[in-house]
């Protein structure tokens, strides 16, 4: 094979394209091809490392696919390194819709300590399946608080005194809500009477009869009575209800049953303390 050494290849007129009618078999030196644009209508194959110092667009940036194969446990298929933005830097965004699309989900830098994976409204994380199935999708998680208010069905409300530490919190995981609270030294509006109910942050489900089984416990109390039969007070929420009924044990026809606790027996006053927790389905 003979070698031709030249500094410049150009068309005779000094403009237009250079046509190579066969492959270029080897470019051996660093920076072998340089210029502004490289256009290939077929396949561009690169076997060595590739450094791209600006944006990469596939199909003009509005579509297309990028696939990465690798076969080593000691490396990774894709590395995204947020070198500057720190907290809440957008590491990977998921869009849909025409044009630039609308952001639907996002992976953000969590203050250089982890990542936030935000699935957006209607999104979910699915376990044990490689495709979406509703039964295995965790589509909601939320933490919050609610005010501790006991209402009498015949009148009056007792609102826990936040200055005395009263308050309640909930954690919603999927369709299940866990709640716990502290009712302390309430201010009582009106005359508290009738059956007693603690307001809840959600409405209980009304899908199956066993949704009547929502409820919880009074784990501690002071200055509240359950009447003469038993000191045990429980919480019960029926289907489609947004409150927990205070319940007490009561003997009816020699059978121990539970009935709604009324203010006539409970005698809630401004010194009453109640610690409670429960579970409901929404």
């Amino acid at each position: 094979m003979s070698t031709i050494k030249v500094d410049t290849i150009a068309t005779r007129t000094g403009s237009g394209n250079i046509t190579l009618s066969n492959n270029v078999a080897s470019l051996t030196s660093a920076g072998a091809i340089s210029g502004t644009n490289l256009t290939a209508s077929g396949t561009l194959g690169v076997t060595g490392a590739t450094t791209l110092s600006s944006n990469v667009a596939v199909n003009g940036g509005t579509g297309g696919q990028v696939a990465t194969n690798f076969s080593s446990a000691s490396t990774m298929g894709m590395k995204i390194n947020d070198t500057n933005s720190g907290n809440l830097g957008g590491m990977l965004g998921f869009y849909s819709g025409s044009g630039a699309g609308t952001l639907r989900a996002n992976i953000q830098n969590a203050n250089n300590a982890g990542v936030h994976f935000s699935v957006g409204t209607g999104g979910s994380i699915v376990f044990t399946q490689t495709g979406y199935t509703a039964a295995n999708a965790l589509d909601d998680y939320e933490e919050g608080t609610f005010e501790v208010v006991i209402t009498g069905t015949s009148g009056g409300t007792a609102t826990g005194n936040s200055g005395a530490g009263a308050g309640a919190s909930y954690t919603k995981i999927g369709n299940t809500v866990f709640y716990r609270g502290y009712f302390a030294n309430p201010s009582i509006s009106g005359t508290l009477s009738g059956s007693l109910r603690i307001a809840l942050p959600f409405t209980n489900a009304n899908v199956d009869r066993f949704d009547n089984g929502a409820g919880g416990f009074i784990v501690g109390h002071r200055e509240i009575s359950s009447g003469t039969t038993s000191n045990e007070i429980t919480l019960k929420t029926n289907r489609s209800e947004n409150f927990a009924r205070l319940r007490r044990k009561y003997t009816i026809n020699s059978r121990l049953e539970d009935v709604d606790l009324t203010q006539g027996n409970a005698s809630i006053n401004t010194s009453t303390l109640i610690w409670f927790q429960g579970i409901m389905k929404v």
Partner: protein
Amino acid sequence: MAITKRTENDKIEVVNKWNIQVRTATIIEEDGVELSRSFSRHVVVPFISDFKKDDDGVQVLTDGKRTYTHTATDISGEDADVQAIANAAWTDANKNAAKASYEALNPAE
């Protein structure tokens, strides 16, 4: 650098056509950029429903049936956006359905 705190009802849901679930977000911002958001919830229903009981809390039956009461909820203390949705959702038909639902789900025992 201005730190501000504000609240907004960022989610108002109508469940079962008449239960209004309200999520209130407390938002902390610095120069208009959100730093944190925490939630508080409550539910607004058209009635406080119950049935007649004796002093011990045991149901009182008349001809084998419970006597139900449905006391309308005062929503004058709710935020305007909650009132608007409640007033839209609580049509006469839906309020009657709420009463009927409570009575159906709480039959004489």
